[in-house]
């Protein structure tokens, strides 16, 4: 799960991570009163969307007077912000963060995430702050310093010092950085994060160390332990079809292609998407219906897939292990009758009672393209894309 920058900063602050004085605003008036309340001689108005690269798209602007805050906030709220992470359709700005301007001396990078290769969390730091860290990692990996969070021993002050010295810090900045890194790592672990990234981390002219930006992702598997995070979920940032799917316990991700698919199991779902691509189509979605593919799940799956106007064909691929294929077939027939599907549907059911299932589909009077093997399913998909509807 992702949260907005202002929410991330509120969480981090509770763990002693230093952030600039700031306040969230949902209207122009709120933005002005936030700036007035924070005080200081200048403010930064930041668009709050779940995507990076906001600065370049005009989503981060500096105001010197309250009037400028008003002007910028009125322009920013409701604007369509396009960044390299939002895609060309962009995102509508509905929330702002107003922060005091800080006197930046240096911009650095720090982050905590899981290092899967060593099955440990790792604290990363770099002098290359404010730029895309993926780029730094790819082009100059030596510029990213790493200290492991030991699984049982944890992350210790000497490791924070090692990183702070390596970043070239001294005096107050060094002390503050050590404190910052320890607090950030504590927050990451306590809140079951999968990523806590501060880019840039700024050193101010008077030696303060502050999170100028903050990005936190949470481990979805641990959300049950942090019920307070539920309130931070911004459904406006999520694809409406994905929100709908999650209500029916379906794991759905919308993609750009023309062939919808419905599969049981995440690995087989990805494999099925690969097959669609090899067959000459582009997957329109990822959809894992999970272990029990009942008539209800198939029906909601159909509805969600077909709500996407780009879908020209659907491939259903169920490997019936514990789930019986004949039951799935009955579900598919029932659902197809109810939902009124107007695109070709390729159905491939294998495993338990697969033959009975194929008969059910063939005798349904509906126009299914039935396949036995995966290979056959691929061929049927190619056929379905080429031939017009109802052929």
């Amino acid at each position, binding site marked *: 799960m992702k949260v907005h920058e202002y929410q991330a900063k509120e969480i981090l602050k509770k763990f002693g991570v230093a952030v600039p004085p700031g306040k969230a605003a949902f209207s122009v008036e709120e933005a002005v009163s936030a700036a007035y309340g924070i005080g200081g001689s200048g403010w930064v108005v930041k668009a709050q969307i779940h995507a990076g690269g906001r600065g370049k798209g005009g989503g981060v602007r500096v105001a010197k007077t309250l009037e400028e805050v008003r002007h910028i906030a009125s322009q920013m709220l409701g604007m369509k912000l396009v960044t390299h992470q939002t895609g060309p359709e962009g995102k509508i700005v509905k929330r702002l963060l107003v922060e005091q301007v800080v006197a930046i001396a240096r911009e650095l990078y720090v982050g905590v995430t*899981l290092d*899967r*290769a060593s*099955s*440990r*969390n790792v604290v990363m730091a770099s002098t290359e702050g404010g730029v895309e*860290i*993926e780029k730094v*990692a*790819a082009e100059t990996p030596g510029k990213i310093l790493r200290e492991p969070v030991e*699984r*049982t021993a944890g992350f210790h002050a000497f490791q924070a010092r090692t990183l702070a010295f390596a970043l070239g810090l001294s005096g107050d900045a060094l002390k503050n950085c050590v404190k910052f890194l320890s607090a950030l790592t504590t927050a990451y*672990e306590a809140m*079951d994060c*999968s990523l806590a990234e501060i880019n840039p981390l700024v050193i101010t002219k008077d030696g303060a160390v502050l999170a100028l930006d903050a990005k936190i992702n949470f*481990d*979805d*598997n*641990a959300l*049950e*332990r942090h019920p307070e995070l539920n309130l931070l979920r911004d459904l406006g940032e999520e694809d409406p079809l994905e929100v709908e799917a999650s209500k029916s316990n379906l*794991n759905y*991700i919308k*993609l750009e*292609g023309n062939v919808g698919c419905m*599969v*049981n*199991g*995440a*690995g*087989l*779902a*990805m*494999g*099925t*998407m*690969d*097959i*669609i*691509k*090899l067959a000459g189509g*582009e*997957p329109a979605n*990822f959809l*894992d219906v999970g272990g029990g593919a009942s008539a209800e799940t198939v029906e909601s799956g159909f509805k969600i897939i077909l709500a996407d106007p780009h879908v020209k064909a659907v491939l259903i691929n169920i*490997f*019936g*292990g*514990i789930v019986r294929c004949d039951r799935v077939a009955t579900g598919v027939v029932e659902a197809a009758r109810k939902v009124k599907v107007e695109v070709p549907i390729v159905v491939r059911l*294998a*495993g*338990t009672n697969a033959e009975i299932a194929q008969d059910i589909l063939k005798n349904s009077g509906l126009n299914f393209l039935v396949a036995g*093997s*995966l*290979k056959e*399913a*691929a061929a049927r998909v190619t056929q379905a894309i080429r031939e017009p509807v109802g052929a």
Partner: protein
Amino acid sequence: MSILVGKSTRLVVQGVTGGEGTFHTKQMLDYGTNVVAGVTPGKGGTDYAGNEKDKFKRDVPVFNTVADAVRKTQANASVIFVPALFAADAILEAGSAGIGLIVCITEGVPTRDMLRVYDFVRSKEIRLIGPNCPGIISPGLCKVGIMPGFIHRKGRVGVISRSGTLTYEAVWQLTERGIGQSTCIGIGGDPVIGTQFIDALELFNQDPGTDAVIMIGEIGGTSEEEAAAFIKKNVRKPVVGFIAGRTAPPGRRMGHAGAIIAGGKGTAQEKMAAMRAAGIHVVESPAMIGETMEKVLRRKGLIRSLPARKKPAPARKKAAPLRRKGARSRKKR
């Protein structure tokens, strides 16, 4: 022959009286797995024979703790069906009771919990499989997990996979061709897991009952690349590989917590390239796994009962070094 589970496996089911636990205990008993005990705290001292829906073919004694189960029944392996937030506790309990093989089926275990049990498991030399996995099966001998038993066939191909149903797909393609499996392991789709590809490959490499291996990976992480390097260095048995998710977009979690392309790393293309460079027979489509394994086995003379198909000269040339070493491993037997 097989690895990790077989006729000497004495299984305790943690969470035996729950819905999932009951259903799959019945399936495992029906398959012939020696389920010696179940554990449900508070229900110790009773015998459990399933519920109305899933009746066991015989009673399974239930204990309050895994330690009790081990003491009374000499259980040596456990399978875990407890809810996600209790899975780490169940793993620690089994390990503390002296269980050597722990298979955690539970899906949705927080990463922090897995990091917490990781060192404990390693320090005690416990073999943990999973979490979030279908389990492990040695066809005809023993099934510890939730995979459908009937799709398997006893034989000499090992299967390792990060996914569930995709593994069933691959196994089914083999079985339909008459190619049996020695052992099939689902290692799980989470970012932190007990048994990695390399661990399983090492066991298959040493197993005289395994001639060849199928390795099914997916996007995210670098464990396939590490496995490829290990294979290049150590494994002389032929390996057929597939990576799911070449069409997956970066930054999106594809169902499994571990299946995510982060920071541009962990793409299917990178993994396939690393595997090809290690001499693995990588297939582009999951529909080709069984067919490719059959070809490889024929080329190496490991399917002898059926007449060999045509042998294209260039392919033969390429396979020559593997062939020699394959022949040596056969002699050992």
